């Protein structure tokens, strides 16, 4: 077994520097690496390129990095619900690259799996496909999209073991598994870190080979963005 545990979030983020490209798991505020984001804020690294499906809200998630103007470029599929983001985008302080959600997922997974590029029909005939190679297969047009390259990936899992094996919970899975191993260094925070052998090898969502560092996270807020309930 190859041990991937680090003592804490400070050690987990060792080597994160200005101008790096980061991938961050999560969909909306669901399944975001809260501890790593807090540490990125604390370190105040600058000029980051962030690849994440969303950009958080004003006072949570990636919104915390935006507030400190740490993000130079944001690659995301949906950036609504964030006034500061809007301001920085419209003023030109921040560059924004909008990518269809499935394409974003595919580009991360391609990086993980060693595919240099993939073909997707998403965005064909739209401005997303501008200056991109397109190609017909079986009478249908596809856009070629290249795998992402990133320096660090910050992942939130539910349970993990010391070997880096991960299990995610519910829809907090989202982009987290497919960003593992898609960056040079994958840092995972978990709600529950267990000894090897405690997780069923048949039920691992992501094997530890895709993980370089894992630590026990703490103080999870797990904020709900749109609390919606029905009558009992």
């Amino acid at each position, binding site marked *: 077994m190859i041990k991937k545990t680090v003592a804490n979030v400070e050690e987990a983020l060792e080597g994160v520097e200005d101008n790096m490209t980061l991938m961050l798991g999560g969909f909306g505020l669901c399944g975001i690496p809260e501890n790593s984001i807090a540490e990125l804020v604390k370190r105040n690294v600058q000029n980051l390129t962030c690849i994440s499906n969303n950009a958080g809200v004003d006072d949570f998630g990636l919104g915390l990095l935006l507030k400190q103007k740490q993000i130079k470029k944001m690659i*995301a599929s949906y950036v609504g619900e964030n006034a500061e983001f809007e301001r920085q985008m419209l003023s030109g302080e921040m560059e924004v690259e909008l990518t*269809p*959600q*499935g394409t974003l*997922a595919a580009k991360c997974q391609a990086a993980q799996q060693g595919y240099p590029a993939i073909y997707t029909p*998403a965005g*064909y005939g739209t401005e997303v496909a501008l200056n991109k190679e397109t190609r017909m297969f079986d009478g249908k047009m596809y856009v070629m999209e290249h795998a992402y390259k990133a320096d660090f990936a910050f992942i939130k899992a539910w349970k993990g073991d010391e070997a880096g094996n991960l299990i995610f919970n519910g*829809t907090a899975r989202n982009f987290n*598994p497919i960003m593992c191993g898609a960056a040079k260094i994958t840092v995972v925070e978990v709600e529950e870190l267990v000894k090897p052998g405690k997780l069923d090898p048949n039920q691992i969502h992501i094997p530890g080979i895709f993980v370089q560092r894992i630590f026990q996270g703490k103080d999870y807020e797990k*904020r709900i963005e749109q609390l919606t309930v029905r009558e009992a």
Partner: protein
Amino acid sequence: MLDKNGIAQRIAKEVKDGYYVNLGIGIPTLVANYVRDDIQVEFQSENGILGMGPFPIKGEEDPDLINAGKQTITALPGASFFDSAMSFGMIRGQHVDLTILGAMEVAQNGDIASWKIPGKLVKGMGGAMDLVGSAKNIIVAMTHMNKYGDSKLLKRCNLPLTGVQCVKTIVTDMAVLKVTEEGFKLMERAPGVSVEEIKKATEGTLIVEGDIPEMKL
């Protein structure tokens, strides 16, 4: 003229036994409320769930269990969770039978614009481009005209496209229309709406053949 719930109710009739359905944000979300309960249907939400159930009872919400609109949801028996790549694999691989989504404009060739108004705020396309680029069957749920009274059923879209030649059916507050090679084919009128009114509200070519029945809800 139908209200939002009326549009959802009409669209629900297009949901057939054995369908996996992806519902967009807004009116499409309401469709789930009107699907017959004697047929087998599963709802997919592209953030990573199949077998999505109703909103939770207060106090039972789970921050790790949301839909693509970031709303808290529940999972029905037989549900499954998966990552975003697998989720869009289902969509891209055409395993999802029906996609229902909103739009700002639809062109008579099936083009759809739904994600961006230049010069105004851009929120992003989310999964819409993947859905319209892949789905076998796409129904657009929208009002026939925008708030300025301009038609949203056009010869050509003015706004940046979400996808090309993909919309099959449009259900508005005024009508049900099919996209055909010749233009929008009028299939049904909303209760109390005349063919003339629909013609006036449709900028694109409208094809009217024979008697146009009133919708049955």
